């Protein structure tokens, strides 16, 4: 297999010229998104350059402390991002549960992956540790974000239905079962669709990366299958933890709906 082709500075500049072309079209069509495209391009460039240097440093100075530190940063960023991306106000309790579900769900899945499935050697090998943790955390973050929105929306729009069930002597768990199940569906659906379309509709990022780096596509799919299962497990586990404890925050000790 060939080693990955290097992109020269000029080739990279030509990619930016492609963006300039896009900007010309946007301006010509008077689509008011020029600023956003320019800012996003800048941000992406700066973020990736910085991450590049950080990763070079971490890869060259393999140390479990750095790997753990990166993992913690990713978790914090993910939790913060869920808070920010949820359009509706979140209670303190719900925020706490989001953080716990996110951290417990992804960490459990990741450790299983690290020590049992792939068996990184050493266990903190940053070349595996960081990208795989990133994929599990990123996907779980999206899952929980969708789950949180669907749960809040469900409780809001079906408040009367939940109250009617409580009036009849339902436990909070029974009264909100439908909303909880709907939230699980919304959270997990993108991951399921992703699995179904995999390899046919698109080549997933990780597999593309492994292929680009010169490995055989057959080796690449083994990783992809493993990571896809890991992602599904991690998303499901964190969403289940979130929903199991999350719905309870809508009720008080007297099993009354607090909205």
């Amino acid at each position: 297999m060939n080693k990955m082709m290097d992109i020269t500075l000029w080739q990279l500049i030509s990619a930016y010229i492609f963006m300039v072309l896009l900007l010309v079209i946007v301006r010509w069509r008077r689509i008011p998104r020029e600023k956003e495209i320019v800012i996003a391009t800048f941000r992406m460039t700066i973020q990736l350059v910085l991450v590049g240097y950080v990763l070079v440093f971490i890869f060259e100075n393999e140390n479990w402390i750095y790997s753990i530190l990166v993992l913690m940063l990713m978790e914090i960023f993910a939790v913060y991002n869920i808070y920010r991306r949820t359009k509706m106000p979140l209670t303190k309790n719900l925020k706490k549960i989001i953080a716990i579900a996110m951290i417990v769900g992804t960490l459990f899945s990741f450790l299983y992956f690290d020590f049992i499935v792939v068996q990184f050697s050493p266990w903190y090998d940053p070349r595996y540790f960081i990208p795989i943790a990133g994929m599990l955390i990123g996907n779980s973050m999206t899952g929980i974000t969708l789950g949180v929105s669907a749960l809040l929306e469900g409780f809001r729009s079906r408040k009367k239905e939940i109250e009617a069930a409580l009036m009849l002597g339902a436990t909070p768990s029974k009264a909100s079962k439908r909303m909880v199940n709907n939230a699980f569906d919304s959270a997990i659906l993108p991951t399921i669709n992703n699995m179904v379309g995999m390899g046919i509709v698109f080549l997933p990022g990780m597999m593309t990366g492994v292929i680009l780096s010169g490995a055989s596509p057959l080796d690449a799919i083994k990783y992809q299958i493993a990571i896809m299962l890991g992602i599904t497990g991690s998303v499901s586990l964190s969403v289940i933890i979130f929903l199991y404890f999350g719905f309870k925050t809508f009720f008080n000790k007297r099993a009354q709906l607090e909205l």
Partner: protein
Amino acid sequence: MFMLNNVVFRDILHIDKLEIPDRKVICLFGESGSGKSTLLKMLNGLLTHDHGEILFQNQSILEYNPIELRRKVVMLGQDPIMFEGTVRDNLLIGLDFSERERVEDAKLLNLLKELELSKSLDDEADKLSGGEKQRVAFARILLMDAVIYLLDEPTSALDEGTEHKVMDFMIHRVQQDQLTAIFVTHSKEVAEQYADQIIYMEDINKKEVISS
């Protein structure tokens, strides 16, 4: 059955003293915003009073497990809520919620007939008219064999003829099984015709009526 002493709920309700007797049909009568629904919800444990005490069978309502309380003191809300599924699902869901045993189709059909509802048990509940939904919701709680029924305007969406038949049926059930029913109505005629006792909200609620 219920005793209320100096009960306050936000700025909606302030009741000095109220006794609701056992095995009677009681009507709560008053304008909108006079606190009728709030009072029912407090008796059902769906709302908790801020001050005072509410006794149910001589024990503070707060000492009951709220879920167990609601299974004895079942409430039918103002809006007839239909859950996902068929008429049968909607009739049985009260039994499921309160962990009681399900009943045979024959009993369900019989109840629908008594309530003048000629619908198949397999019909989608969502497609029923307002009046039909109200009767399904009513039938649902009658199946539950509760001790007390709290009914918030149970016949508001029915025409006069059906309203009387439904009320007759309810009164018959309450008397036959020696139950207690507390219902809310806007109709003075219904109140006077069916209630053993009428409680006028303006007499018991010391808070100003908030017009809604």
